[in-house]
């Protein structure tokens, strides 16, 4: 670090320090994805003949499109449930004292850090025919034969919602924390009631957090292989399992690659829609 003007700034470190990670990513992240793309552009399993056959196959096949559609739908349902349940948590967090705040955060955090298999397993226990829900309903005499909860769309959505809820709640807590508490008071002193204040002020201003949370939840929900396959059982097919089957069971790598690329693009599209919305809402929300 001589007298070169560039090295004067003692608060920043050279870009060189990013080089190892950049190289690592280039080799082990970018290159594999490119290879994936390359392979997906082949019509045969051996990867000798170029062509868009795999994509054509996917996009003209109602079954494949159905899998894609139901996956995207699943993500939307899970995200909606998470938002509906997560927002009140974030709201409550802002209202309670520091002790309860820490407890809420830890409750929200714990599942995030608990193994996803364990969390999913818990839902098998809960939703099973002898599980807690059926046992309770039966003992209350509400039903006499156990309900089928496992291996249903409902079960998958609920389990995924629980598994991904922290991803929604944490950004929401952050976003609500950034809202000037005076705005709430200002609205109130201007004569607005709580509901009005919530829908007109709090909700719009927390949009950046809502969007961040939705992005994370959505991306996580549609790729949640374990939960989808364990709670969904063998007959509900979503993109990750479809991809896995094609790659692992059927060894149809080019098609699996095409599925991956389509899946990647779908996720990217959703994420960028959310990001765009996020940017708009940030413009909207000031700051």
């Amino acid at each position: 670090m001589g007298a070169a003007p560039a090295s004067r700034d003692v608060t920043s470190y050279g870009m060189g320090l990013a080089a190892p990670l950049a190289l690592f990513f280039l080799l082990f992240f970018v290159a594999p994805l490119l290879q994936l793309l390359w392979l997906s552009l082949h019509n045969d399993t051996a990867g000798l003949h170029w062509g868009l056959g795999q994509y054509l196959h996917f996009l003209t096949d109602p079954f494949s499109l159905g899998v894609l559609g139901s996956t995207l739908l699943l993500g939307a349902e899970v995200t909606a449930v998470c938002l509906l349940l997560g927002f009140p948590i974030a709201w409550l967090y802002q209202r309670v004292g520091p002790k309860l705040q820490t407890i809420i955060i830890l409750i929200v955090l714990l599942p995030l850090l608990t193994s996803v298999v364990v969390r999913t397993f818990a839902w098998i226990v809960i939703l099973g025919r002898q599980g807690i829900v059926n046992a309770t309903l039966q003992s209350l005499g509400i039903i006499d034969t156990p309900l089928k909860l496992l291996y249903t769309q409902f079960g998958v959505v609920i389990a995924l919602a629980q598994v991904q809820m922290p991803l929604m709640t944490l950004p929401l807590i952050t976003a609500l924390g950034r809202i000037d508490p005076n705005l709430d008071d200002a609205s109130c002193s201007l004569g607005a009631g709580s509901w009005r204040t919530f829908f007109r002020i709090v909700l719009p201003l927390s949009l950046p957090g809502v969007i961040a949370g939705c992005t994370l939840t959505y991306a996580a929900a549609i790729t949640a292989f374990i939960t989808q396959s364990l709670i969904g059982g063998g007959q509900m097919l979503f993109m990750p399992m479809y991809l896995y089957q094609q790659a692992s069971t059927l060894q149809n790598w080019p098609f699996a690659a095409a599925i991956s690329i389509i899946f990647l693009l779908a996720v990217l599209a959703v994420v960028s829609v959310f990001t765009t919305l996020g940017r708009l809402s940030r413009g909207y929300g000031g700051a």
Partner: protein
Amino acid sequence: MAEAQGGRSLVVDAVTHRYPSGALAVENINLDIKGGEIIALLGPSGCGKTTLLRIIAGFIAQTQGRIIIGDDIVDALPPNKRAVGIVFQNYALFPHLSISENVAYGLAARGVDKTSRQREAQRLLELVQLPTMAERLPRRLSGGQQQRVALARALAIKPSILLLDEPFAALDKNLRLDMQIEVKRLQRVSGITTLIVTHDQEEALSMADRVAVLSHGKLEQFGSPSDVYDRPQTLFVNTFVGSTNRMPGVVVSADRTAAKVRLDAGAEIIARPAAGSLTEGARVTVCIRPEHLQFVGDASGFAGVVGMSLPLGATVVHEVTTADGSGVKVSQARIGETRALASGAAVRLAPLAPSLANAFPATL
């Protein structure tokens, strides 16, 4: 409640508030404010100004005491029913709503229809001289403009009381002066009872009809600006408002209106007993403001040695060390370069007039 009109009286009746954490934020505050007055709540940071304001607005339910607006005890009313306008220090404009939507917000909340509330918002924006900004978002306005929008928004609901919490703290000196004048103008126009919270004594003295000085949650004095400046009732008020020299001494003789005090620094002076009468022989603290001391040629005052002289723009402040070793500040108008006092010069000092020194019982 939307019909409430400017100029209602406000009574703060023996209000005490203790936060759940146990902090006693305000203690037995009594204020009797006439309709249309401007009152400044003045005090150092943490003395409970904001707490009191939030109690009046209804954001906090006081532990004890009552708030009476006009003829109504409002303690049972939530903030959105009190018809109190509030302007926050950081303005608290809704960042996602346009200026006119901000101003019309309170009307919308009351169910006023769109055209009338737009008309009203426009009228208020004209009142605060921002008629062309209606469609902008708040962040595209300067600090002073935002301030005015916040005012317009608070006035839109025709509140009977207007509360301003450190309204100018975030503005720079020049803008601040403009805004003070603007607020005073609007207040005169609307005749609305106004309470301004500030820790800036100049602001309090220049804007308010009466000033309430708080310290540690207690009301120290409530009176006109000149009362507070010239006839402080407590040592705290005397030192907090304006600057002052504190000189220890002993009472030689005293009645209700005047006391003769022998200063430790060496002279006998006449001072006003600030809080009731003083007993002979009691130790007192005499407060004399720097601008109320003068250099005298004769032997009438007390002696001292000039230390540093700091020219402070319009004034020169001389630091003088007195015989008992304490430091005294003397301020003089600085007209051009007329005055020049050598450091180390021996001088004598005396108050300009007897009524300008205040004597307080010495506390430890």
